[in-house]
């Protein structure tokens, strides 16, 4: 370990020697302090905090990401090119230790810079929150500066599948010929969709079925606390005003107290959040919600994300720290990528290669589209036709595989969770650590160490 620390320390010294640490720290602090002066918010304390969190943390991630990649490529490739590594390699220290030491040095440097800049963001947020009027402060602490857990209805897939199968059987018994003529998979899918719709539908002028949401063990600490309801619906027909009326009712007499909203004006296809008065769930922690539909059209609340209850589950601070942990995992991967490239390539090529990979990762949306459409030849939404290309045979499976790898790292959204007041859990952090650091950075690191071990260091020409 001592050798690893020694190399890590050398990396730190190099970062200070080249004033990299000071420059990056300065840039990070300027972005954290300067952004709030430049950005234009929606005029609410909640909106300002959300945009501040998003922009500052994104700016920190981007700045730190690029500098990590640059530093990782530079520190190893230039050591090799300038023959300084020969001084190390002749010492009783293994190549893998050199590699790992540099990685540790860069990651620890990132950790310090991240802590410094994120600490400023946190302080700024708290300072601004304290300056708000009490009601806005309360709203902010209920909706953004909070770590909220979420509860949804139980999963109805089993019931839906069983009912769909039963209906399919009955239909086939009535019309056996269909077995041979129809695409049974498609028929079942359509039956399943109609069964599912029955769970989601709220007919005009009627109340919805009761949505029963079990808060589980969280009920124990939620007594006396208001909760939040997040709903989203689709409408069968458009409305001239773009909105629909709706009445929400909470509780199930006589088991619980009840509460009812006035007629609310809500837009379809969008999430709406409402405060649920405290103590409306029963002794088992089940909260019953119904929706009255006074409109002349049916509304559909998707089972997946139509109704969700959000409840306070911890402080913003710990969640913020865990989110930083996930960002640091990304930095660790970038450091491994930069070092692995530099183990094999010269500095400019390694930097170009690493940045290329990063750009590819950031444009994974394009790849996802191509995979979804099954072609890179383009899709015409007006004609609902797709082009095709012989290249698709190779490219699409490649994209699919690349997406799987990319998603291992990109399926985390700590900044998004923080700005919407969602809790970043230990599980998420653990997953990030295992997927991004252990699996991805580990694999890249092994490749890098292998490449460095096999590289002829004495063959490099000193750069004057």
């Amino acid at each position: 370990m001592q050798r690893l620390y020694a190399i890590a320390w050398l990396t730190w010294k190099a970062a200070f020697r080249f004033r990299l640490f000071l420059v990056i720290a300065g840039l990070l602090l300027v972005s954290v302090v300067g952004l709030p002066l430049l950005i234009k918010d929606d005029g609410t304390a909640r909106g300002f905090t959300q945009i501040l969190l998003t922009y500052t943390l994104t700016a920190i991630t981007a700045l730190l990401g690029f500098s990590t990649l640059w530093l990782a490529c530079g520190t190893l490739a230039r050591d090799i090119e300038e023959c300084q590594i020969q001084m190390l390699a002749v010492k009783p220290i293994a190549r893998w230790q050199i590699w790992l030491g540099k990685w540790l040095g860069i990651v620890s440097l990132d950790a310090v810079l991240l802590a410094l800049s994120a600490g400023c963001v946190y302080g700024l947020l708290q300072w601004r929150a304290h300056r708000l009027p009490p009601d806005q402060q309360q709203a902010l602490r209920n909706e953004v500066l909070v770590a909220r857990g979420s509860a949804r209805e139980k999963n109805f897939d089993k019931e839906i599948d069983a009912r769909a199968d039963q209906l399919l059987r009955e239909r086939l018994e009535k019309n056996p010929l269909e077995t041979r003529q129809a695409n049974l998979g498609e028929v079942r899918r359509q039956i399943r969709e109609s069964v599912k719709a029955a769970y989601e539908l709220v007919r005009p002028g009627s109340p919805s079925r009761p949505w029963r949401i079990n808060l589980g063990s969280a009920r124990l600490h939620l007594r006396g606390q208001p909760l939040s309801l997040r709903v989203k619906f689709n409408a069968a027909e458009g409305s001239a005003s773009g909105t629909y009326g709706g009445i929400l009712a909470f509780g199930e007499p006589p088991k619980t107290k009840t509460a009812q909203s006035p007629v609310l004006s809500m837009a379809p296809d969008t999430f709406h959040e409402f405060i649920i008065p405290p103590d409306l769930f029963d002794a088992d922690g089940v909260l019953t919600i119904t929706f009255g539909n006074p409109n002349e059209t049916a509304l559909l609340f998707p089972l997946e994300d139509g109704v969700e209850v959000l409840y306070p589950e911890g402080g913003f601070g710990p969640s913020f720290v865990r989110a930083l942990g996930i960002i640091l995992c990304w930095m660790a991967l970038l450091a491994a990528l930069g070092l692995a490239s530099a183990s094999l390539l010269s500095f400019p090529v390694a930097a170009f290669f690493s940045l290329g990979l990063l750009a590819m990762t950031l444009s994974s949306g394009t790849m996802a589209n191509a995979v979804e459409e099954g072609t890179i030849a383009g899709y015409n939404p007006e004609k609902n036709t797709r082009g095709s290309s012989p290249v698709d045979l190779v490219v699409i499976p490649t994209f699919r595989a690349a997406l799987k790898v990319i998603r291992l790292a990109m399926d985390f959204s700590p900044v998004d969770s923080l700005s919407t007041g969602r809790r970043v859990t230990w599980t998420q952090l653990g997953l990030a650590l295992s997927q991004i650091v252990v699996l991805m950075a580990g694999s890249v690191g092994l490749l890098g160490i292998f490449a460095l071990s096999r590289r002829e260091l004495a063959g490099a020409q000193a750069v004057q």
Partner: protein
Amino acid sequence: MSGRPKKLLLLTLAAALLAGVFFLQGSLNRDREQLGLTRMQPLENAPPVLAFTTVALGGFRGLISNMLWIRAGDLQEQDKFFEMAQLADWITKLEPQYVHVWLVQAWNMAYNISVKFTDFGDRWRWVQRGLELLRDQGIPANQNAVLIYRELAWFFQHKMGANLDDANMYYKQQWANEMAQVFGKLKKPDLDELINPQTDDQKARARLLREKFKMDPVFMKEVDQHDGPLEWRLPEAHAIYWAALGLKIAANNPSKVKAEDLITLRRVIYQSMQLSFYRGRLVNNPFAKAFEFGPNLDIIPKVSAAYEQAAAEDAAYHDHILQAHKNFIKDAIYFLYEYNRISDAAYWYKYLAEKYPNADVLDYSKPGTSPARSVSLDQYCISRIQDDVNGTPRDRIEATIEGQIMTAYRCLAIDEDEHAAGCKLLAQRLWDNYMSRIPAGDRRKAVGLRPFAEIDREMLRRILDPEHGAAPEVRAVLLTKLGIRGDTARAPAPAPGTNAAPGQAHE
């Protein structure tokens, strides 16, 4: 030459060239425009950030703008709106001279994003963002872009003025509050004091009008005289102002304006004038501590003239506009009658009969059977609140009469004396009309209405009832105005058949 003299010479040359460019730039820009060498106007008087982004980023602006636009679209799909104001700001700064960029971004905020919120306060903020984007940034960057004026006027007319959005009353109230900062809360707006402010307060309010709301009181007065009188605390007046300003700008640049753009601007004006007629007067209800809306009857001649002008200028919609004009005149007659302005109502009724001799005023299902010349003004106005007196059950007639009398007392309490008298008159006419159709004899007693005075007394008793009647302060005002002392039991019965306001009936 070398060394220091050479450097000095080069510096002098550079300075001279820069000064030359400074003087030439103006004429070069004019030549570019006149010779059609550029599709867009050079950016003038732009704020530093805007000037920097347009010049420094060059052709890359479009790319960056596209990326931001895609991000805005993605975020909107995910219901994340807190970045939208920032993204719209950047996008418009990158493409300041594409008028449609301003229009789309402002529309998106005022219409698409606003309705995503259930809280009316949140909605109002987004409507304001849309307005501000056009008014505070779009127009200064594109002073001759008629479409931006039209869009701004449309936001006032449609988003705030019409009742399509569930929050429209909230918007109107908020706008009235904003305007109260300029005109004061309870008094009628006085433009002269803002044109020539004398006191510090007047100066501050004039500055607010010019700097925050970007409005010129001199032009406001012009508009008020031409298309008014307007209630400047209501959105319709502002729709007319911005559309009129668009027309003025268009008149200065006739070669750059399409005929259809002018038509849409004029359409905004006459439609907003029509709205202004229907509810272009603010009535302060001190008991509800809120504004109520009343019709602006003084604007009728100008609205009528605006319709006729629009019909003459808009060949494509000529017949539709005249149809709307006819309907407007019918409404105007009824409103005047309801507000006890009988002679004005008679004037416009005569005008209707002359202008549209074949227009039916009673039974629209049988064309040609009820032209204005063959129906009396009273008959027409009574038919407006009750389509067919003969076929209406007695109870409904009585309920309608009761409703009119209650409205009369309510109006009286908030100093709407004309309206009160009109409602009372209408109730009396309705009673007369119904009773005149019942033949004399025993049947009259069975299906006839209670005496009008009795109904009136009953309504007064109800409204003055200390337990179930109006609020104490409303009762107090009514008692004072009606000259009644003591409780309702001692209230004298108003004289039957009077045309005067309830308060005047007892004088």
